[in-house]
């Protein structure tokens, strides 16, 4: 390929745009990672000597540890529940008549498009209603947060699983039924294995959405004294956050990066395998 000088200039400009935007995205994160190994009080201060002391402090900071624990517990349990609820719902919706399907799809849309603050207020008022009007023995708690997170993430699982369900070859299920397997057995041995990939994606999506949530958690932990990483950082960010937060951030960045690399390796391997099968 012989390139004109103008196209080389265009190529350089394009690279520059990408590099500048990437720098803007990653510089703050890189600074946090770098300063997680520094005793400096805040970022930009003199770096001082390399040290792991912040990581030591992190594991002594009970508040920060419990916030991390809460975030993970809420994320894992709510994503599991959302995956179960979303997958069963997808199967049910798949076999519904058009009209009832449209109604359910519309109500799923409510959760997705509604302003988070209104959803959060809805949950808050529901708890007041259950506790103070119906006098049920319930209160704001980690269980309540798990329920709230499950409800807001389930529609996303449905969005992930439903398209896969439409792609499935209906003949495989019919074959299973014709060959004498009961509906339940057919569902579990024929349909669910084919949905496994979509369920994993749905779980991952629900889990990340739960980890990232702030508004619903913040409003629905009023008076419950439960912190997640988001609410912990929020409550301290205007004044002063403990320096250990830099160590925690670094660990989280590392986990995200490693999971993404592993995910992509597995994905590429699967893609190669399926290519080989076709040949």
């Amino acid at each position, binding site marked *: 390929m012989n390139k004109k000088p103008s196209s080389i200039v265009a190529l350089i400009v394009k690279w520059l745009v990408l590099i500048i935007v990437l720098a803007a995205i990653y510089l703050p*994160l890189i600074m946090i990672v770098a300063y997680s190994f520094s005793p400096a009080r805040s970022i930009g201060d003199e770096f001082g000597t390399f040290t792991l002391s912040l990581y030591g402090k992190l594991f002594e900071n009970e508040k920060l540890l419990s916030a991390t624990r809460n975030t993970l517990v809420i994320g894992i349990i709510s994503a599991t529940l959302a995956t179960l609820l979303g997958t069963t719902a997808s199967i049910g919706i798949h076999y519904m008549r058009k009209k009832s399907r449209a109604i*359910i799809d519309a109500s799923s849309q409510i959760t997705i498009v509604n302003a988070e603050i*209104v959803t959060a207020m809805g949950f808050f008022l*529901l708890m007041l209603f259950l506790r103070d009007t119906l006098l049920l023995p319930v209160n704001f708690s980690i269980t309540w947060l798990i329920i709230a997170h499950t409800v807001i993430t389930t529609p996303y699982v449905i969005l992930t699983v439903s398209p896969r369900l439409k792609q499935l070859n209906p003949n495989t299920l019919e074959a299973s039924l014709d060959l004498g397997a009961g509906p339940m057995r057919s569902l579990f041995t024929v349909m669910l294995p084919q949905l496994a990939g979509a369920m994993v994606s749905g779980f991952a999506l629900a889990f990340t959405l739960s980890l990232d949530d702030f508004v619903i958690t913040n409003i629905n932990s009023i008076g419950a004294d439960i912190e997640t990483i988001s609410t912990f950082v929020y409550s301290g960010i205007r004044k002063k956050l403990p320096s250990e937060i830099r160590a925690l951030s670094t660990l989280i960045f590392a986990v995200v990066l490693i999971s993404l690399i592993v995910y992509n390796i597995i994905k590429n391997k699967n893609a190669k395998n399926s290519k080989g099968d076709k040949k």
Partner: protein
Amino acid sequence: MKKAKTFRPTAFAFPYVGVTIVFVIVPLILVLIYSLIGEDGSFTFNNFIDVFSNPENVNQLFKTVGIAALSTAICLVIAYPVAYILASSPFNKIAILSLLFIIPMWINFMLRIFALKSMLQMIGIGQSYGAAVIGMVYDFFPYMLLPIYTVLSNMDKSYNEASLDLGANGVKTFLKVTLPLSLPGIISGISMMFMPIFSSYSITMAMGDMNTSVIGAKIATLFEQDSYGYGSALSFVLLVIVIAVMLIGSALSGKTSKPIKGGKKDE
């Protein structure tokens, strides 16, 4: 065949329907009911009258629309060229490149805001309106980029080639072919950013000053102060705005999705 037709496991959706009624529909009804109850417990429209008669609320609503529009516009102006470059050759062959721009999506946004805030403080930018806008752009960038990138990279290149072959120059081809075809991605990106900003009081509180506050912050404060009626009325107004924007958005994307029907229709 017959068996498959009688096999209709619609019952599988019942748990979800139940959950949706109790935890989605009932709360919305409760927001409406609470907004119509006065402090003495009687039925009243006073909460709504308070919402609209207080110029501060209207002011705040306009301010929120302002900061949302400004941040969304800046984000779009940065994200579109990046998406365009990433979707074009030779960049589209480097798979890791687009991933690099999306990775921050998976990192807790509050921690990213903390990182950005520390960085801005280091270079001497304190809490201000501008910092809040930078925070919004930084936080929502991957959500704006992804839908535009997806549309652009799935676009059938023969449209561009046809336009160039028929004598249009690069700029004209972009304006008349590429841009209109990428509109669904743009609309999807805008809707992923514009509405959530109404609620994202955490970013304005962390990055902004006294003048920077979104309507979501006001609602949160009202509930913290136990003004449930007033807060619910304000929430309800926000809900109506959301529904209106949603309807306008779906009407717009319904119009724009028509021309691509012949080609690949991936979103």
